[in-house]
């Protein structure tokens, strides 16, 4: 039978192009958050195998990971200019579209005879592919297949059944929720950083394939190729070829317009774009990944020496004074919608039942480290303070006045009450057997091991149970969600 180019194949080809280009550009934005790639999960400066930044950090850790960001141009990245939060939203929305396109494509393939176009059924395909390669090398065109020749069939097979699943799985392996629950999963790819590196290499292979694909389409005859993929006509008339070219040009123009619109709107009205994309992304994250609670257990020898600090410690006088006397006399407050507000000194807090865990910290920027944490499970505070039935969220207030960005309020974060009761959720006071250093959140920091690092608030002053967060700050559920357009939840 003549497989040709039925409507389902043609439509998914077009949608694939739309979502792949969005994925590539938003992926570049995400890369800019930490423009270095590693094959080790400690991410020590200098151990990266490739980097995409014009600078290096000082060799004595006198900096924070924020300094390592590289703002890429909007001509390349979506949206560009150091907008990691929106880049992630665009990436995840595009992933959803790309996966749905892929599912439709597979449905078209395997509910008809169309699977023959991709799946070789004889070992002769390798010999025939060699013959096709020789023909190309001679600058000739091999005989047409049905619809692909053997070399094309093998290439598309690898692309659809090897590379695409690899991209999906390496992307998932970077999710702290998934990696926290199934610690073996990222190890399949050499750890979180191995997965991140392979995810990047996969992107390069997709781009290289696109260049190769377009070159071969031109070699085979560009206009005939367009007539086949646009109209499904293998032997098109001159008129049909003209129509196909017109449709293709219109499509490419529309695609460029979509990218320009998405980029400009993201840069000019980030809050509106954040809200729109969040409506698609967050329910999926909340249902699929948020329920995965952390069961991490690393060995003491896995602990990272000299891990990256992130964020600069508070400079306000109150904090500096407290830090100078090791927070003696300071009390940690638990209040809000509770029947029994709590007020505990650090010594009192240290006398509570504590837990110890060695876990991997996964920053939204892309880097990671492993450390040992000691602290009080957050659920222990909830059990003591007796939350009101109206309480749905926990608000973390901090000493961090964000002196680097004056006028934008103090740092805060909101988490769901359910997360607070999850295993390995700690209010930590020790790191690697020592009291928390200021750079890592002294006197107290949150450990929320199925979330990205930015949800693990440092320099905690107090916590409050609240019914709603929309009247706090700019109403997005956290300082970074308000100002940097990050998601309120971060299981991936």
């Amino acid at each position, binding site marked *: 039978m003549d497989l040709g180019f039925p409507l389902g194949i043609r439509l998914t080809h077009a949608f694939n192009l739309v979502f792949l280009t969005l994925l590539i550009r938003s992926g570049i934005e995400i890369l800019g958050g930490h423009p270095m790639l590693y094959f080790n999960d400690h991410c020590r400066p200098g151990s990266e195998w*490739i980097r995409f930044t*014009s600078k*290096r950090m000082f060799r004595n850790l*006198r900096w924070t990971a924020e300094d390592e960001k590289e703002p890429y141009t909007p001509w390349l990245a979506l949206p560009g200019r*150091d907008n990691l939060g929106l880049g992630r939203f665009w990436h995840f929305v595009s992933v959803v579209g790309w996966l749905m396109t892929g599912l439709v494509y597979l449905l078209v393939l395997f509910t008809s005879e169309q699977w023959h176009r991709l799946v070789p059924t004889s070992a002769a395909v390798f010999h025939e592919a060699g013959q096709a390669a020789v023909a190309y*090398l001679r*600058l000739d065109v091999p005989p047409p297949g049905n619809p692909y020749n053997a070399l094309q069939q093998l290439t598309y097979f690898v692309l659809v059944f090897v590379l695409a699943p690899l991209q999906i799985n390496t992307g998932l392996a970077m999710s702290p929720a998934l990696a926290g629950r199934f610690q073996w999963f990222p190890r399949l790819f050499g750890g979180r950083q191995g997965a991140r590196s392979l995810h990047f290499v996969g992107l390069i292979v997709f781009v290289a394939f696109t260049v190769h694909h377009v070159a071969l389409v031109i070699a085979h005859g560009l206009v005939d190729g367009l007539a086949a993929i646009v109209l499904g006509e293998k032997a098109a008339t001159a008129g049909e070829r003209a129509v196909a070219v017109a449709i293709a040009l219109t499509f490419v123009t529309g695609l460029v317009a979509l990218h320009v619109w998405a980029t400009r709107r993201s840069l000019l009205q980030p809050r509106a774009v954040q809200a729109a994309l969040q409506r698609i992304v967050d329910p999926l994250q909340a249902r699929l990944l948020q329920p995965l609670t952390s069961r991490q257990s690393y060995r003491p020898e896995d602990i990272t020496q000299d891990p990256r600090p992130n964020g600069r410690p508070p400079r306000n006088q109150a904090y500096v004074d407290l830090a100078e006397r090791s927070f003696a006399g300071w009390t940690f407050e638990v209040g809000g919608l509770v029947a029994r507000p709590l007020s505990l000194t650090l010594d009192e807090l240290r006398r509570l039942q504590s837990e110890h865990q060695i876990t991997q910290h996964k920053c939204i920027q892309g880097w990671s480290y492993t450390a040992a944490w000691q602290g009080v499970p957050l659920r222990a505070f909830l059990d003591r303070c007796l939350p009101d039935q109206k309480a749905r969220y926990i608000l973390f207030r901090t000493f961090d006045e964000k002196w680097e960005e004056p006028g934008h309020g103090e740092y805060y974060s909101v988490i769901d009450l359910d997360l607070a009761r999850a295993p390995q959720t700690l209010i930590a006071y020790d790191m690697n057997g020592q009291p928390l250093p200021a750079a890592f959140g002294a006197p107290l920091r949150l450990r929320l091991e199925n979330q990205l690092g930015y949800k693990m608030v440092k320099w905690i002053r107090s916590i409050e149970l609240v019914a709603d967060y929309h009247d706090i700050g700019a109403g997005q559920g956290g300082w970074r969600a308000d100002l940097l357009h990050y998601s309120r939840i971060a299981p991936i």
Partner: protein
Amino acid sequence: MTDSESQTDDRRSWAPPRVGLEVERRDRWEIVRHGTFAGLSAGFALGFVEIVVSTALRGDPWLPFDFAVAIVVGPEALAPVFPVAAAVALGTVIHILLSVLFGVVFLSALALTFQLSARSWLIILYGVVFALTVWEVNFLAVLPLIAPTLRGRIDLLTQLWNGIVSYSLVYGPVLAAYVIWVRPGTLDRWWLTDGRDAEPLPLGHD
């Protein structure tokens, strides 16, 4: 973007302080100058190897020139009666101009992606991949468009040795070797530890 647009949105009006040492500099003319030198070096090396290979395989040292000229004047340049001097003159000009053009493109691509200071093995890999891409795009996509009559006129051995092997083992690596040797636009090699940083601690850090 207009001033009015910049006032109507909720974008950040600030940027966090950034520290770090620049390791790369993007200077347009420096890139063009070094791209030209790199392209010339790689072009001469490629031309030499192609002449040697053509002599060894076909006994005709001028074949690469004939093919370069055929792109412009058509397949008659491949005929034995076509004057050698004309083929060498025009072929050399076309070869060198394209070598320089692709040298500048290579350096520009490295600068654009902050790879001028990359590890040496990566730059060699970039050179090989770039040269193969140039070969594929030129011979499979551009040539059929501008000189369709050359389709099927090149035998497999010539294409293999004068094409893929020469491009990937000579043109690309020589481009890369130039970058590794000269390190244009590179202010510092980031992976070395020389312990000479003396910048003050960012405020508030312990």
